[in-house]
């Protein structure tokens, strides 16, 4: 398992190979990857890139905790997350999530879960540049709902929002 926060871009091939190398030896027959990209527009029109702030220390542990939760909840043999921070241009890669499992359903579910929970619980904040002004992006109700779908199936989160 690997969880990384970095400014540099990442290589699809390298991350796939890293995840697959051990996974196939552990019987993985299915690898799912998710990549998030900077879109060049928002509801107000075109944007000129984004900027991501994070909480050094906590962000890394939150990503590691998320991988541990996903491993407990789903039948996966390995998983990894890489999240970029800092200034990112339109169309740049933002985040990569990979999951490996014996069977495809668990790999798909685990990757979906990791992304849904990441968007609700990992301390990273996004600004969008628009006409030389950078505006913080508001959290989406859709993202809350996506995470709640998983949480409602649990006994209850150990820690609540304010």
């Amino acid at each position, binding site marked *: 398992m690997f969880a990384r926060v970095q400014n540099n871009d990442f290589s699809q091939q390298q991350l796939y190979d890293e995840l697959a190398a051990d996974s196939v030896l552990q019987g993985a027959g299915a690898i799912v990857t998710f990549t998030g990209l900077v879109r060049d527009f928002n509801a107000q029109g075109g944007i000129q890139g984004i900027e991501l*702030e994070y*909480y050094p220390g*906590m962000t890394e542990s939150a990503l590691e905790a998320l991988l541990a939760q996903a491993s407990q909840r789903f039948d996966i043999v390995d998983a990894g997350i890489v*999240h970029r921070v800092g200034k990112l241009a339109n169309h740049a890669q933002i985040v990569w999530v990979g999951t490996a499992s014996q069977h495809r359903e668990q790999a798909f579910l685990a990757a979906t879960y990791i992304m849904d929970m990441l968007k609700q619980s990992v301390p990273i904040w996004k600004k969008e540049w628009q006409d030389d002004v950078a505006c913080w992006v508001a959290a989406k109700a859709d993202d809350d709902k996506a995470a709640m779908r998983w949480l409602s199936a649990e006994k209850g989160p150990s820690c609540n929002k*304010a």
Partner: protein
Amino acid sequence: MVTVKFFAQVRELAGVESLQAPLPQPATVDALRNQLMQQSPALNEALQGNVLMAHNQSLCDGNTVIAEQDEVAFFPPVTGG
């Protein structure tokens, strides 16, 4: 003393990234938040509304008990991914 950190909009409104604060009475995250909000109009505005809280780098709620040397952070709902 406890270390207090702010991120994103909360940091910008607070006008500061980090500060040291005396341990409040009672020693909870909510009490610390109230103490900070009385300290300045900027902090009052920054800590209003839907603010998430972390205690020693784990998400927590306002009832969480804190101790000397702990780290508490306040920030808006996250928007990564």
